[in-house]
């Protein structure tokens, strides 16, 4: 076991085999779902197939993008501790273009294809008889949807690539050789991170989940829906980072990372699980209290209808489990417990997205969730493959970063 900071990740043969196996599972699940429910004629069935693709691609895109957000937010805050594993965050963020393209294809196909059972507002004939949708036609229009979607994916990918390039440049040592140059590097890095945060605020935190997920229930709206989606995917993204840190640590990589860093990652998962619950509850309680039919229509099938089991189960997984397991200091510093909670949380928020998408698409019966899980595994395979490939390209530690000392002496 080497502890050198210049070391690269060499994926074990088994790692890539698992990644490919998961991708194969995903493809098989998608194909069998298409064969059993797709086909022509039956509108509802076809919607079920596309809804599954929509749920998985949007969820995993937002999750890997959360790693990007974490990197930029900590850069903007001049944080030092995350430098110890910043290459892991970058590697996860490098999945954004790949999954972004997949999501883009699916979203544009939903928008311009003939899949009105998912996005009702794309059906001009339907909108003509629907005064509510006519009012929203500026926002819920094909042109606006396509523009925002393409811009979002392109900007995320571009800014993420820029951040990655900046970080990689420090490895040569030239850009951080003198104090003046280090100051300049930190400044440039901060500016780039700030640009990304602005884009992020205009996309994930405000418009994009409204368009991608909320517009399935086109009549219903909640202004905090995007925030709630952000919290959901940010927790899952932090869990993904924690999983990779634990995995690499167990394989003898990442010499600078110790339990203090893991503790802080655990704190992020813990705190944002509560933040997610706060947003979820704020959205739920106001609607429950006001009891206006046009708003409660969203929660009727979820909280009381056939989806209630999934709805309450995901609340337990996403709130009760992290808060009770992660409350004590020792559990956040324990590799096994962190792994268990991270897996649980990623699954829990996947269920959260499931119950956001499907009650509108399939209101009469809960679809067979195993197919969706299979497609989800496929996306996990893609994340594993791309992340592993990116990790193996460059040194695993940003050893020349100006803040690396802060990461080494980090103490919680």
């Amino acid at each position, binding site marked *: 076991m080497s502890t050198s900071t210049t070391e690269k990740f060499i994926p074990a043969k088994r790692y890539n085999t698992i990644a490919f196996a998961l991708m194969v599972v995903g493809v098989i699940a998608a194909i069998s779902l298409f064969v059993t429910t797709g086909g022509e004629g039956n509108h509802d069935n076809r919607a079920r197939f596309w809804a599954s693709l929509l749920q998985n691609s949007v969820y995993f895109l937002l999750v890997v993008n959360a790693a990007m957000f974490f990197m930029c937010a900590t850069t903007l805050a001049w944080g030092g501790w995350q430098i110890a594993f910043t290459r892991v965050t970058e590697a996860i963020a490098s999945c954004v273009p790949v999954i972004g393209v997949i999501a883009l294809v699916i979203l544009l196909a939903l928008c311009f294809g003939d899949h009105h059972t998912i996005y009702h507002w794309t059906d001009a004939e339907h909108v003509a008889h629907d005064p509510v949708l006519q009012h929203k036609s500026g926002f819920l229009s094909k042109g606006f949807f396509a523009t925002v979607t393409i811009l979002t994916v392109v900007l995320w990918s571009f800014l993420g690539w820029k951040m990655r390039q900046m970080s990689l440049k420090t490895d040569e040592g030239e850009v951080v050789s003198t104090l003046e140059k280090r100051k300049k590097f930190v400044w440039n890095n901060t500016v780039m991170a700030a640009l990304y945060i602005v884009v992020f605020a205009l996309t994930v935190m405000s418009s994009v989940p409204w368009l991608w997920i909320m517009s399935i229930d086109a009549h219903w709206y909640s202004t905090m829906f995007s925030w709630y989606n952000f919290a959901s995917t940010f927790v899952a993204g932090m869990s993904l980072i924690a999983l990779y840190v634990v995995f690499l640590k167990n394989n003898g990589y990442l010499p600078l990372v110790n339990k203090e860093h893991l503790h802080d990652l655990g704190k992020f998962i813990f705190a944002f699980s509560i933040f997610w619950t706060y947003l979820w509850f704020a959205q739920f*309680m106001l609607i429950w209290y006001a009891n206006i039919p046009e708003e409660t229509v969203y929660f009727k099938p979820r909280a009381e209808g056939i989806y209630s089991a999934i709805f309450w189960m995901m609340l337990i997984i996403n709130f009760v489990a992290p808060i009770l397991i992660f409350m004590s200091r020792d559990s956040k510093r324990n590799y096994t417990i962190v792994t268990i909670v991270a897996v649980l949380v990623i699954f829990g928020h996947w269920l959260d997205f499931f119950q956001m998408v499907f009650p509108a698409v399939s209101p009469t019966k809960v679809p067979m969730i195993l197919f969706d899980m299979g497609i989800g595994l496929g996306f996990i395979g893609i994340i594993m493959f791309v992340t592993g490939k990116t990790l193996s390209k460059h040194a695993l530690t940003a050893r020349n970063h100006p803040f690396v000392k802060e990461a080494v002496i980090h103490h919680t």
Partner: protein
Amino acid sequence: MAIKKFITGNFYEEAVLFPAVKKVRRAGYKVHDVYTPFPIHGLDKELGMKDTDLHIAGFIYGITGTTTAISFIGWALARDWQINFGGKPFFSLPAWIPIMFELTVLFSAVGMVLTFCWLCQLAPFVKKDHFNPRSTDDTFVMAIECTDKTNEAEAIAFLKEAGAQDVQIQSRETGWWFGRYDRETVRFGKKVAAV
């Protein structure tokens, strides 16, 4: 409590203090405490202190708060004096969650502050001896407790060797008392300079 003998030394640098603590502990001296003007990361570990249990107390206060809130509102609104609020059920849990949350925070916050004061013996009129007033200003003060077996001259030399300055032998009250500093000189029948 009791008046005991201590050997105290001042340190000006963390870089000197940490190895000194290690040396003194390894030599078998009993470090009573190290007084610093601000918290120093890692010093508690170096001194071999165990983690506080304050957070467990906080958790218990918190769930007490939650229980208090839900049982009282539940009793008041669903049992004792049922009021129909816009057709909501009498036991309307979602509406109570903000209050349950607030009481959880209130109980755990107030309870932890009081427990902290109790553990540190902080209260109005409670007085304790200081070893050196500069430990509230600009130096780190280490106090070694003298036992029957301690050779004082040797210990003083050892502490000086470890980098301490202004090393002295002091007799100090280890506990706390109510009242004023100057009265205590009488109370223990022994002259203890008010610091």
